[in-house]
């Protein structure tokens, strides 16, 4: 009986959702809407070829600040929840065939992540995506070489420094915006060379780099905390 009612509810809900959402209009009400503005003036105002990046880090840079703060908060939360006394670490990892192959691949993956980060304003991607790939390297280390390796090479302190440093870079660049152009997160136009080059789009690449390192370090911390085997902590 309950199952039947639930089924009925969900079928009805599906029907209602479909009806309600299908009325979505094709055209927007405002004739010169947000997107028209961004598409029309995005390149000349920000200098970023990638309009999504232009929106994310320039027009709506504050959103991105909030968003990176979300990641920062999540990382802090996870570390808070999972911080415990550690077991003595033993490093095994996978077979040495995998280790060696990955040794060859890892620099290129890192390079690729840097590529994604620095080309945020030209190609798809940006700080967040590149940062996740950067974090993937740390994940690889933990997985393949064992977490001790990861711990030894890139200590949590280093990661924390990178994380907070990245976040602060964002805010510092925003503050520079006040200094040079009068508004927080204002695009630093003097950094622009010419559209299409790497050194263009004002402060967008810099913010991207900051966020990239922040996200990379943050997610690495997250993964490292989540896999570590721990004792309970008395307090």
């Amino acid at each position: 009986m309950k199952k039947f009612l639930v089924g009925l509810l969900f079928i009805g809900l599906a029907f209602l959702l479909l009806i309600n959402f299908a009325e979505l209009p094709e055209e927007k009400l405002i004739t010169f809407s947000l997107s028209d503005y961004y598409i029309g003036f995005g390149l000349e105002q920000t200098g970023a070829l990638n309009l999504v990046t232009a929106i994310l880090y320039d027009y709506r840079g504050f959103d991105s600040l909030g968003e990176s703060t979300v990641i920062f908060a999540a990382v802090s939360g996870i570390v808070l929840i999972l911080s415990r006394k550690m077991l003595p670490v033993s490093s095994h990892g996978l077979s040495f065939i995998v280790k060696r192959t990955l040794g060859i691949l890892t620099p290129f993956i890192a390079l690729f992540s840097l590529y994604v980060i620095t080309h945020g304003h030209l190609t798809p991607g940006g700080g967040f995506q590149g940062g996740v790939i950067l974090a993937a390297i740390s994940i690889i280390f933990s997985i393949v070489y064992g977490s001790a390796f990861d711990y030894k090479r890139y200590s949590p302190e280093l990661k924390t420094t990178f994380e907070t440093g990245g976040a602060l870079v964002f805010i510092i660049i925003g503050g520079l915006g006040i200094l040079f152009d009068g508004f927080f997160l204002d695009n630093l136009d003097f950094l622009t060379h010419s559209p299409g080059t790497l050194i263009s789009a004002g402060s967008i690449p810099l913010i991207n780099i900051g966020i990239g390192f922040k996200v990379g370090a943050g997610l690495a911390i997250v993964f490292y905390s989540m896999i570590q085997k721990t004792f309970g902590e008395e307090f």
Partner: protein
Amino acid sequence: MISISILLLIIIPLVVAFLIPLLDLYNKLLRRYLVIIGGVIEISISIYIIISYFSDLKAGKFFLTYYLGGWGPPFGINLVMDSVSLIFSSLISFALFFIIIYSIGFIGHHEGKYYVLFFLILGAMQGAILTGDMFNLYVFIELLTVTSAPLVAFKRNKHATEAAIKYMFYGVIGGLFFFVGVILLYFNIGSLNMAQLAQHFAEIENNMQLTIISIFLIGLLIKIGIFPFHFWLPKAHSACPSSLSALLSGVLLKVYLYIFIRLFWIVIGFEFLLEFNIASFLVYLALVSSLFGHVFALQASDIKRMLAFSSIGHIGMILAVFLLNTETGFYGGLLHIISHLLMKTGLFLSTGYLLQYTKSNHIDDFAGVGHQNKGIFVGFILLTLSMIGMPPFIGFFSKWYIIMAFLKIQHHFGAIVVVLGSLSAVFYYLRFIAKGYEKIKLSASDLKNEIYNRPILSVFYREKLVTTVIYIFVGMIILTGFSFRLFELPLQEGIKELINPQNYINLILGG
């Protein structure tokens, strides 16, 4: 008027939060100074705003704005502070400053992460209040969820973790609905700026309007904790450390209420709720929620849970009185928001202090607390008296105006619910007060156990700190009780804004 100070209200906490981990790597003792400096800066900015723009406020044209990235209102994100936001923002600065000081005496472990998350919550709350952009609001709402959830699980036991999981599930679903709502607004209108959305909302097709309203309603009702979605609230608010319960129950709920007000009075426009007959339904829903909150509070044997349930009751009441959409209703609602903020925060803080000396939050362990901490318990009693609406405290006056608002439009059910609410409040508070004054005889083993359970951090100076904060709150409720007309000016301005949203639109879009 463009003013950078309202940006600093958001940025300063974020900077402090980002700096704390760096500072921790260097020296852990510096952290406390940083934290206090952050709080002081925050509150002084609030005071600065009030003082320097007081003439504007008096003239009824208080309006501050800031363009992020230098992009003007329809195309960029802008921060807005009008009278309503001023009230909320400065109240939050005030309350959180004292909670920070309280925390220094209260939180014993993992202080670094605690303050990081705490300052992030502060920044997110200020952001959610000050932003003038719909999607930015969503980001801040999510930030609130993500920051508060780990703190809910801060105690790291089964109960707290369950609470955090429940909180997260509800929070994420609510946030998702809010996201859908924002996107729907964007698809229909083509803008994300609140003023522009408000300008064009009436032109949307009728059915679509209803859909948007429904989606937003679900999202926000989950966040506020109105009856069918309140299940996460008591558990989450009771599981975390008391300083945080005070924040969640005393302050955060008001932020969500503010968002509700902002959304349904300024962006969407209340006339649509009336047009679709949703308003009266919502009034009844909120009232039922309030009733349930009080009824559940009656049976709660865990004091913090009881306080959380009482929060449900009060928030439902405030929501209902706002939804009446009358001037008295706004006045009563806003006043009660202020009073409930002060009272609940103070109550949770004093409860936290009292519970330091008990084994658990259960009522049986509460016995004899009043004899152990006489001063604080008196403060606790005064706060509860304000809560149930005793005269010299502010609780009475706000309750007075709320009932007045209900009766003014002959909404007797609402008035009765409010009366019943404060009536049941007497029942559930008295249970604990009577328990607290119960004489108990401790056996030797009990005594040992108690000393063991007593937190080590209750060193003398910290205890003083905690006590002082509680007395400040008690003093505030008495002070504001005698002079609740202090808020008259911003309240009246705020009410004007709520009644006439067109003013807000004109100020932002400059038309």
